[in-house]
């Protein structure tokens, strides 16, 4: 229907009213009666044996309700944190997962590791008592750098003597080597994908409450997937069966992956509440704790080689990556540098032979797991940096080199599992070149040179696989869960609708886009639709929001449930209007009977369904409520071309992004306003990776040097420009809405675009990320000397 709120409309967000008036309801905004406060005692060492934990002084401090350590966890047989994706090494051996107790048992393995928890009447009292917990450590050798960790004398887990979690490979090694043997040209590059700290603006928080009367638990937590949290806490930590555990993720202030995972703190809060007689326990991370303990992202060291023939066609690609896992395997850590990474190494290109090998390696750092893009930014970075480098070496225009190698026939089976279903990469390139005025770049570069600036341009023709994921396929690859999504459509007797979705919104605007779909399909006012999510007691089991899946998977589940609603409503309408169901049509919110002037509004049918006076309830059940579980048949493949144009001030090393163009193919779009917002945010996270953000651990001490906003540079408004966005559209064939995913694209595309521009401006093969002023200035010095 065309009421300005249907599919494709720039509908203003329904959720905004509460956020712009300060009425959002985030976990830390919630306070329960008789609530206590947790503060964690954390390891000051990167690696140490715990000799003794003396709580005698702390336990006598004012306001202390309880102090718990790994001994208490062991006594209650609370299981450790898990990694839910089994990866097997090349030699067939399973990945080496070390123990990860919710409070340390005998050892700490990174600075910030959770050692003990103090529960007290106020946060200040808890913090003061935590400082009085006396832990005696025996410091062990540590290693924080992934490039050095394999075989290092510091052994993070006994189960992995050389610190290697797995040695995994994909593709045909022999065929790829053969392609290199016959190559006309080989391009080689060494790249570091810098470690990032997610930094959702809302710090993680949890409130755990045990109900002594009901013998049940409630956990409020900052989660992107409350059902998965409940499943894991129930099945693996063994706290309580699922029907005795309610997990609520209310308004969540950004996730970017970091709130997918099940963390020690939330499990501790809900477990320890029973230990203190059922008083709720609240924990809210200080930003410093977020830096230390949220799962970090990226941290790859890669060597890549690209083979081309005499005509400039890519014939082979081989990659070796060392991927840091941190000190423990986080919830989905193992799939990030494998199936979310190396399966995208074909990029947008027709590459007949690809072989990649990945060593996942423990380091004495915070765990590394999915962060916006998760594996796909790393893949795009490798592909797009080496393609750009190859074009330069072959003295070909980088745009035309790409075009020459684009996949143009679909479906396209890559040598690394993925089967691309639809796309038009040339169309996006053409559009991007026009918007970015590629032809005029030479003139702009010359003009910049007159001002003493170095100007560069860089491309990133990215592809990603999202809408994760077909359950059977990922199950065969080691996933411990299925990644379908669920929906329930509840039509009320007055014709208003509640959608219960397993997806979770933490900024994506589901309350609006999901309602647009329903409004469009049922022909009802968008204000008569509400979206319910984030509470395991209200919503059926669902898998949550990550991997740009809520549109393609979550909305398809809603769409399927709406199909059922329509079918049922037609039966009711047919009965009431005394017509054959085959003659009932539904359009614009009205049921009509073919060839007659009989009609019923959707609301009338809903009421009839509940009143149930006018049909035989032995044939038609009363009520109007349907549910669906949707398991996708394939990944979806958003792709596009991003072009960055930058200027460097050689006097200071400062890089300014002066123009940025993004042309994306997300298939059909429900709400362009929201999609554009997702792209903007993603681009800036990627610019952050390229130019400003880098997590640094001190090699000597193992301490996190970038542990606050004083040292970790979050992109600010003045660090980035406004963006030029446009879209192309090849509808996705694997879901009825034709949607791909848009949540991660910006962060996947932009680091390579920016760094290709930086290296173009500087005339260098590589510059390390983040290309901070200091890094750029230092890289320029040898060139200056040479020029003198």
């Amino acid at each position: 229907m065309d009421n300005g709120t249907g599919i494709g409309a720039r509908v203003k967000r329904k959720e905004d009213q509460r956020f712009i008036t300060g009425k959002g309801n985030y976990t830390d905004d919630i306070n329960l009666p008789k609530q206590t406060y947790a503060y964690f005692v954390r390891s000051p060492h990167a690696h140490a044996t715990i000799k003794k934990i003396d709580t005698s002084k702390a336990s006598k401090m004012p306001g202390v309700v309880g102090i718990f350590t790994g001994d208490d966890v062991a006594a209650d047989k609370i299981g450790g944190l898990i990694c839910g994706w089994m990866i097997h090494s090349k030699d067939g051996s399973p990945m080496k997962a070390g123990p990860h107790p919710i409070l340390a048992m005998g050892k700490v393995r990174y600075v910030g590791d959770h050692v003990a928890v103090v529960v007290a009447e106020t946060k200040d009292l808890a913090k003061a008592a935590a400082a009085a917990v006396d832990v005696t450590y025996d410091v062990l050798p540590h290693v924080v750098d992934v490039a050095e960790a394999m075989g290092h004398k510091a052994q993070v887990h006994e189960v992995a003597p050389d610190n290697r979690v797995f040695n995994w490979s994909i593709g045909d090694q022999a065929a790829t080597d053969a392609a290199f043997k016959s190559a006309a040209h080989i391009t080689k590059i060494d790249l570091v994908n810098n470690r990032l700290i997610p930094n959702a603006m809302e710090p993680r928080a949890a409130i755990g409450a045990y109900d002594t009367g009901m013998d049940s638990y409630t956990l409020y937590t900052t989660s992107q997937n409350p059902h998965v949290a409940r499943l894991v806490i129930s099945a693996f930590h063994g706290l309580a069966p699922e029907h005795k555990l309610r997990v609520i993720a209310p308004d969540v202030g950004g996730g970017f992956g970091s709130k997918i995972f099940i963390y020690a703190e939330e499990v501790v809060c809900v477990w320890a509440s029973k230990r203190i007689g059922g008083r709720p326990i609240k924990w809210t991370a200080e930003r410093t704790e977020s830096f230390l303990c949220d799962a970090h992202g990226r941290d790859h060291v890669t060597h890549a080689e690209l083979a081309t023939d005499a005509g400039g066609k890519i014939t082979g690609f081989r990659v070796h990556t060392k991927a840091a896992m941190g000190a423990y395997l986080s919830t989905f850590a193992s799939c990030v540098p494998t199936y979310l990474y190396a399966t995208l190494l074909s990029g947008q290109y027709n590459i007949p032979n690809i072989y990649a090998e990945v060593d996942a390696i423990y380091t004495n750092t915070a765990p590394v797991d999915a962060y916006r893009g998760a594996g796909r930014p790393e893949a795009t970075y490798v592909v797009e940096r080496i393609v750009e480098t190859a074009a330069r070496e072959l003295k070909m225009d980088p745009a035309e080199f790409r075009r020459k190698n684009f996949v143009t026939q679909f479906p396209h089976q890559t040598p690394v599992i993925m089967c691309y279903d639809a796309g038009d990469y040339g169309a996006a390139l053409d559009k991007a070149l026009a918007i970015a005025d590629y032809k005029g770049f030479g003139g702009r570069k010359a003009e910049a040179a007159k001002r003493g600036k170095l100007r560069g341009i860089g491309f990133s023709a990215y592809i990603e696989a999202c809408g994760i994921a077909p359950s059977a396929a990922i199950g065969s690859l080691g996933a411990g869960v299925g990644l379908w999504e669920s929906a329930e459509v509840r039509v009320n007797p007055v014709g208003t609708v509640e959608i219960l979705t397993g997806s979770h919104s933490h900024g994506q605007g589901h309350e609006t886009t999901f309602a647009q779909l329903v409004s469009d399909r049922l022909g009802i006012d968008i204000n008569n639709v509400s979206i319910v999510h984030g509470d395991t007691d209200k919503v059926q089991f669902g898998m949550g929001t990550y991997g740009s899946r809520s549109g393609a998977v979550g909305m398809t589940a809603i769409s399927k449930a709406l199909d059922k609603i329509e079918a049922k409503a037609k039966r009711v309408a047919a009965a009431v209007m005394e017509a054959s169901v085959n003659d009932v049509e539904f359009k614009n919110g009205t049921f009509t009977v073919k060839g007659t002037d009989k009609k019923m509004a959707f609301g009338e049918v809903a009421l009839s369904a509940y009143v149930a006076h006018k049909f035989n309830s032995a044939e038609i059940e009363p009520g109007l409520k349907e549910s669906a579980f949707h398991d996708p048949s394939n990944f979806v493949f958003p792709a596009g071309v991003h072009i960055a144009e930058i200027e460097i001030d050689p006097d200071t090393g400062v890089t300014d992004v002066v123009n940025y163009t993004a042309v994306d193919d997300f298939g059909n779009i429900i709400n362009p306003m929201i999609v554009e917002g997702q792209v903007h945010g993603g681009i800036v996270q990627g610019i952050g990776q390229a130019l400003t953000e880098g997590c640094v651990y001190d090699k000597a001490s193992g301490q996190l040097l970038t542990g606050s906003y004083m040292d970790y540079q979050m992109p600010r408004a003045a660090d980035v420009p406004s963006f030029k966005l446009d879209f192309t559209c090849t509808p996705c064939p694997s879901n009825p809405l034709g949607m791909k995913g848009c949540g991660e694209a910006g962060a996947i595309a932009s680091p390579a675009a920016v760094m290709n521009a930086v290296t173009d401006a500087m005339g260098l093969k590589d510059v390390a990320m983040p290309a901070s002023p200091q890094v750029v200035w230092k890289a320029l010095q040898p060139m200056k000397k040479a020029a003198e």
Partner: protein
Amino acid sequence: MPAISMKVNGQAVCGDVEGRTLLVEFIRDKLGLTGTHVGCDTSQCGACVVHVNGKAVKSCTALAIAHDGAEVTTIEGLAANGKLHPMQEAFREHHGLQCGFCTPGMIMAAVDMVNRLGKKLDEDTIRHELEGNICRCTGYHNIVAAVKAGAANM
């Protein structure tokens, strides 16, 4: 514990505080006005910005006890008589928020910006003036557009 009183969003309030109680703790915990957020511990993110005696300050870097007698406006006090402030309206109109966590501080900072610099603001000025507020979701593009439009409508 000393008692303090102040006017918050036009209403007289009072409460007992410790010396160390931060203004943001008083606002959130004692007054239950949870629209003002805490996003960092080093006075950088700006999620906690409120107006004290008409000027934007970081309420995480202010002692409550020092504000005895002050007039404080939080995000909850911006809409008047059920009508959104033009800056609130502009953030919605221009999709200047996603997760909403930084939004109260952004809006309070934006209103203060207009109070100081007037209603005609160019992009460079807006970006520069937002240096005390961090957003992780929007990439700032739409925040800048929202501030510009909101300023014009104030």
